[in-house]
Structure formats: C-alpha cells, structure tokens
C-alpha cells in the first residue's frame, strides 16, 4: 500500500516541478517579449497561461484523490496540503505573465530605453520562481529562506521603476499612457515575487511543519 502511495507522491512531485517550469517559461517569454517588443512571442504567453491553468486542475484533482484514498498524516499531509496551496500561487504567476504579455501587445514599438531596470526586475523574479521550485524539489529550507529574503530586492526594484516612471512623465507628459503600462508591468513582476515568496513559505511548512509568523 505504501509503495503505491509513494509512487503517487512521486507523480505529484513531478507534476509540481513541471508546473513550476511552465511558470518560469511563461514569465521568461513575457519578459523577453517586453524587452524585444516581440508581439508574436507575447501572444504565445496566453497559451502558456492556459496550459498552467490546466495543470493546476490536474494537480488539484491528484491531491484530492490522495487525500481521499490515502488519508495522509504527518509529512505526507503537509506535502499534499502545501502542494494545494502552492499551485494557486503558480496559477497566479501564469496569469500575471499573461497580463504582462498582453500589455506588451499594446506598447506599439515603444522602446524600453531608460527603463532597463524593469528587465533586471524581471530577471530577479524569474530567479525567485526558479529557486522556490528548486527548494521544493530538493526540500531545501535554506534555499526557500533565500527566496523570501530576495523579495526585498524585487521590492527595491519596484521603487526604482516607480522613480523612473515619474521621471519619464516629467520629461514627456505625452507618454503618460506608456508610463502607466510600465507601472502595471512592474507591479505584475512585483506580485510574481510575492507569489514566489508564498511558494517558498509553503516549502518550509512542508519540510518543517511550521508556518512563518505573520
């Protein structure tokens, strides 16, 4: 009985890793489309996001089945309940990548000159998502804690982007709409960082059984 359960948990693990990889790819594509202005690539992110939604459903049903069939306790229960929470964050990451890509299609060839910091912010958030999924795979509490710390770096980037946008509007008020689009994009990246932080917190819970104090 335990062997079968172990196999099912292994499958669940594999699916979560796969969903994590899908999220990384969606954000990377959105970020690349943003920096290169590649509208076709931006259009592809919508499909990525739909696939992520589909994966969320699959993992959800896998978890429900395990709860029903195996009535897990202790670390098994923590793993499955953490998985159920983590996939919600992953699904949101997919949505936000899609939102970013959608804005890219409206930018009409505006260049990111002077706003390279958004690219840095994108790289940092992608790294956070990658590390949070890695921490899950390796059950690595230290790596998960690093992700949580890095959220401050992303928040700093967000402040810098805001200042950049203020300058942009001051210098050319006709670019107001573009400035607002950039603000939205950077806010989405900032939210992706928050979701990666949540994932890292669930990894810590799954391994140690304790939740970070609010």
């Amino acid at each position, binding site marked *: 009985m335990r062997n079968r359960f172990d196999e099912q948990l292994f499958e669940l693990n594999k699916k979560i890793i796969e969903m994590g990889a899908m999220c990384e790819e969606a954000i990377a594509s959105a970020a690349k489309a943003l920096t290169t202005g590649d509208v076709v690539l931006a259009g592809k992110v919508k499909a990525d996001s739909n696939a992520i939604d589909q994966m969320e459903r699959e993992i959800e049903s896998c978890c429900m089945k395990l709860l029903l069939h195996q009535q897990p306790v202790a670390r098994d229960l*923590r793993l499955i309940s953490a998985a159920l929470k983590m996939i919600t964050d992953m699904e949101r990451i997919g949505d936000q990548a899609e939102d970013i890509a959608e804005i890219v299609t409206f930018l009409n060839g505006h260049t990111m000159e002077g706003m390279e910091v958004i690219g840095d912010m994108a790289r940092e958030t992608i790294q956070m998502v990658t590390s949070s999924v890695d921490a899950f795979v390796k059950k690595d509490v230290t790596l998960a804690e690093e992700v949580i710390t890095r959220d401050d770096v992303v928040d700093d980037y967000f402040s810098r982007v805001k200042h950049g946008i203020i300058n942009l509007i001051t210098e050319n008020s006709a670019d107001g709409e573009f400035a607002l689009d950039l603000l939205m994009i950077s806010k989405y990246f900032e939210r992706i960082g928050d979701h990666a932080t949540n994932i890292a917190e669930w990894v810590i819970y799954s391994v140690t059984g304790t939740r970070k104090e609010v």
Partner: protein
Amino acid sequence: MSNIISVKDMCLWYGEHQALKNINIEIPKKSITAFIGPSGCGKSTFLKTLNRMNDLIPNVKITGDIRYEDTDIFSPKVDVNHLRKEIGMVFQKPNPFPMSIYDNVAYGPRTHGITNKIQLDEIVEFALRDAAIWNEVKDRLKKNALGLSGGQQQRLCIARALAVQPKMLLMDEPTSALDPISTSRIEELVMELKEKYTIVMVTHNMQQAVRVSDYTAFFLLGELVEFEKTDNIFSQPQDKRTEDYITGRFG
C-alpha cells in the same frame, strides 16, 4: 488541566520478557487519550495495568509508580475491586452476559450491594442513556442482551461499565469488531462521554485516533515513544519512529 493518572518509570515483565520499559505519562482528566502502535508494542498491556487487570496474569512483575488521583494503585491499602469500579473497562469484542439487558447493566451495582428496585431502575436508565442506547432498548429491557446487534451490544457493555459510576473508562479496540455505522456511533458516544469521564482507548485505526482523541501515545517495542496532543502527533510528529509508523512506512 489536572491529571487523573500519573505514571513514573514503570516497567513490566512477563516472566523473563520485558513488555514495558520505563513508561512515563500523565493522562489529563476528562479527555480522550488514544494508544497506538503495532501489535505487540505493549499498548494493551499498559492499558490493563492502569486498573490492575494484569494482576490476573501469572508471572507478571511491575516496577515503578502508577498513581490514580494521587493514590499509588499498588499500595496494599488499595481495594482492587474499588479501583476497577473507578476505572472501568470495555473490550474489543462486545461481551454482554447471557441475561437480560436490564440485568447486564444492573449487574455491577448489585455486586456493590444495591438491591433497591427503584434505585436500580434509575441507575439502569442513567447508564443506558449515557451510553446512547436507551431509546433503542427501553421497551425491551427484559429481553436477552444477546439478541442485540454487535454495535448495540458494545454500547450495552459501555452502559454496564458506566453503571458503577466510574471516573475513567479503558477501551481496548472498542470498535474493531463493528461495522462502520456502529463504529461511528461509538466514536460519537466516546466524544460525548468525555464531558464526564476520562477515556483511554487502544486503537489500530489511525483515523479513529485522529477523529476522536485529544492526546495520542505511540508505543513501540515496549517503549512510549511519543505522547502529545493528537493534532501535533499527526501533523508534526517529533520522533522519526512515530512519523514512520503513522505514515505507514513500517508496522
């Protein structure tokens, strides 16, 4: 919460074989404690020690200290019959006496000298009500108890244990011989009983321990490995052996 049972450094031998090793535990009053562990781990032995049922087995040697409400249960001053009246027992297989439902419940009070019919009637009704079986049997109290279903028989046995007004009930796998509906009735009953009584229950059904008990004690090879609040044991066990057992990695 104050404790009803306090055990210190208790060991038990069956002849040469040591069945319990240095048990230390405090059982809180008016709570449900589940004893879990693989077969032969000593949990039933320990349960039966609490009301000195093990006295009946030859070659048993017990050391250490067991206190029931601050009284050493092995003190020569302790009347074993009185101890067993205070700490009742319910077994795995329902074992009603081959007599009427009424006489089953009245048996204990009668052996303790109660003969007054009105008083006995009151006790029988109170015990059957507390065991959540009164409504099912009130019209057939004179019928033979062996005609009841397994689940009803088990509740009758609980009523029989309650009739002598114990403070504590020891239950050795009380639902393992019952169907799921009877099991759930007994589980509900046990949860109601903790308002008035302290319950200690041996169970092989892990989900039952999770559903019903406030505290769980995990026994392995005669040792008490972990004793904790049930929610903690089943979400965050501290000992790897507990974790391995409850997650089905051995046992």
